[in-house]
């Protein structure tokens, strides 16, 4: 009863005119920042942080949380339209979102991202209010061995789910893991594979590598198809999803919401892993797994729901324990601390108005995201209707601007160029780029936890891997690897 009363006053606070304006501003800026390759959710939230210095604490956290919500959706816009995930969590959205656009249905692809994302955001918020304590207890069971297994599971899953040769996908993932080892070793400070280039001491910059490999390579692929029709606009349907299509994505949205919420509650796991696991679950649950990768609605809805539910999940350890579950949550914690508030159990007892304003604003932010997303669709579609001869140079220029603007470093553009050419070469050789990108994102987490695990166990490999959660995750990873090989073997036997 007390919770309902606090939630009521939270809504009253969040619906004050100034707070509503900041919420709308946050969602709008978040969508734009998330859609811009190079500006991830955390960078967009960080850019807005100075604006909050003069605001009341509840308003500042409403603005930042609304930006976070908007950015996670925004990341899918560029993923769907130009095969470039605006945020790492949207990498998986490129698998089916972009193919659906190429088939001529960009509005449908956006709807399968926006609506499940909104549902997931709302459900995650309900969970945040009602079951945050048991979720935190589960999340706290994750030690280095569990994180290592989670990373391996994510990589194994994505390598086995990618279309084409599993061997090539595994090679691609291994290349990503190797690239993630470049730079100063964090345990003893030894520079690995830097070959005396000081720029490599900090490792491969993630965002330029990611946008180079996915977006630049796409620009080169795009112009291959150009003939003499350079300025011919592409024809796209403006159709919205039909009722049967909506019905088909609802189970995926619900499964994605649960996955995103649980993974989000695990500090450091993040939206990338949540969306990978969701994609894997959807492909396995589907009656037509062979259609995944060609623009199947469930392949967009599940990962996007997971991606957006992560926001609510991340807030659980942040608010209940003061543990930032992601870089964005860390920025939000710093915003609270700037106002003299300490996230953690005391925040609920000392400043419940801030907490419940945030809960209420999360509901409203998701609804605002839905409204702004629907309004914006007619505008976003103009991007894909631009002729390819114009779009391809624009993608290159956006990649350069996006990677340079964050660090002001020409080295980052060099990374975009190298990874762009590398990504194009891989595509021509039928080596999938997604496992490389994901391994680059997850590589540090996998290695750091692998070493921590061995350090804690005194060099014993077997003991930590036999812990229940670890063993289950590794067994699932093994199954993910073995099943495609088994299927290929059976197919060959059938042909013979």
């Amino acid at each position: 009863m007390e919770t309902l009363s606090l939630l009521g006053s939270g809504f009253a606070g969040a619906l004050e005119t100034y707070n509503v304006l900041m919420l709308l501003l946050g969602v709008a800026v978040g969508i734009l920042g998330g859609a811009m390759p190079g500006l991830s959710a955390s960078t967009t939230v960080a850019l807005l942080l100075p604006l909050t210095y003069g605001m009341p604490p509840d308003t500042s956290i409403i603005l930042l949380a609304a930006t976070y919500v908007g950015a996670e959706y925004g990341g899918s816009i560029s993923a769907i339209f130009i095969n470039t995930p605006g945020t790492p969590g949207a990498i998986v959205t490129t698998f089916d979102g972009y193919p659906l656009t190429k088939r001529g249905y960009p509005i449908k692809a956006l709807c399968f991202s926006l609506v499940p994302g909104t549902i997931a955001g709302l459900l995650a918020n309900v969970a945040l209010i009602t079951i945050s304590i048991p979720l935190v207890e589960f999340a706290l069971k994750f030690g280095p061995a569990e994180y290592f297994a989670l990373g391996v599971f994510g990589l194994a899953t994505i390598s086995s789910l990618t279309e084409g040769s599993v061997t090539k996908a595994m090679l691609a993932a291994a290349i990503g893991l190797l690239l993630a080892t470049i730079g100063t070793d964090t345990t003893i400070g030894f520079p690995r594979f830097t070959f005396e280039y000081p720029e490599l001491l900090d490792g491969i910059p993630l965002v330029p590598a990611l946008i180079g490999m996915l977006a630049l390579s796409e620009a080169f692929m795009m112009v291959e198809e150009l003939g003499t029709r350079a300025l011919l606009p592409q024809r796209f349907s403006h159709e919205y999803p039909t009722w049967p299509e909506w019905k088909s994505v609802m189970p995926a949205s619900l499964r994605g919401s649960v996955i995103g919420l649980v993974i989000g509650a695990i500090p450091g796991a993040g939206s990338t892993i949540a969306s990978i696991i969701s994609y894997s679950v959807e492909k396995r649950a589907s009656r037509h797994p062979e259609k995944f990768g060609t623009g199947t609605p469930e392949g967009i809805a599940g990962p996007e729901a997971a991606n957006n539910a992560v926001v609510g999940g991340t807030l659980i350890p942040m608010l209940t324990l003061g543990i930032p579950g992601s870089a964005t949550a860390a920025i939000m914690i710093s915003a609270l601390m700037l106002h003299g508030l300490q996230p953690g159990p005391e925040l609920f007892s000392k400043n419940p108005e801030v907490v419940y304003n945030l809960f209420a604003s999360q509901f409203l932010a998701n609804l605002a995201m839905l409204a702004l997303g629907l309004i914006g669709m007619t505008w976003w579609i103009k991007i894909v209707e631009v002729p390819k001869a114009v779009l391809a140079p624009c993608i290159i220029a956006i990649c350069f601007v996006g990677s340079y603007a964050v660090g002001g470093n020409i080295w980052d553009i060099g990374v975009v160029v190298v990874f762009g050419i590398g990504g194009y070469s891989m595509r021509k050789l039928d080596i999938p780029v997604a496992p490389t990108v994901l391994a680059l994102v997850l590589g540090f987490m996998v290695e750091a936890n692998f070493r921590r695990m061995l350090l804690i166990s005194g060099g014993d490999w077997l003991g930590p891997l036999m812990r229940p959660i670890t063993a289950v995750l590794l067994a699932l990873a093994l199954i993910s690897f073995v099943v495609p090989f088994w299927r290929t073997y059976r197919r060959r036997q059938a042909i013979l």
Partner: protein
Amino acid sequence: MKVNSHRVVTAAVGVVLALAAAYLLWVTFDFPPGRRREPGPALWPRIVLTLIIVMAGVIAAGALRDKQDRSLIEPGAAAAPFSLMGLMLAYFVVFTPLGYYPATVVFFFAALWTLRVRSWKVLAGVSLGFPLVVHLVFERLLNARFPRGVLEMLVGS
């Protein structure tokens, strides 16, 4: 050797990757050991490099055994991506010395012309409009700063 053969290039890339990974594996033997019971900085890269050698070897062998072949790039489709790649490299080289704005205008004009855009409205609109939008959004709104290059020399900072 057929340069445009998918099978031949795949096998060659597999061999090169395996050799490169073997070299990097050799490099890891110069890495220091870990402190006390810590596994050290070499263990994980060695595991990954071994995986790369095995996978690259399997792919190279598979490509050599493969009876079917196709073109890596369709003959008629090669010009556009490689021209765009060349222009992108030139854009990267002049990005700092020439300055962001002049370099971007020249890049767009050259890239669009190469991709057979002949409408002067489109050429001028995109070449000038894109840097203008970037200036308003990134420099004015987000306080990012791009290299001025020759502009700085001409008109000061």
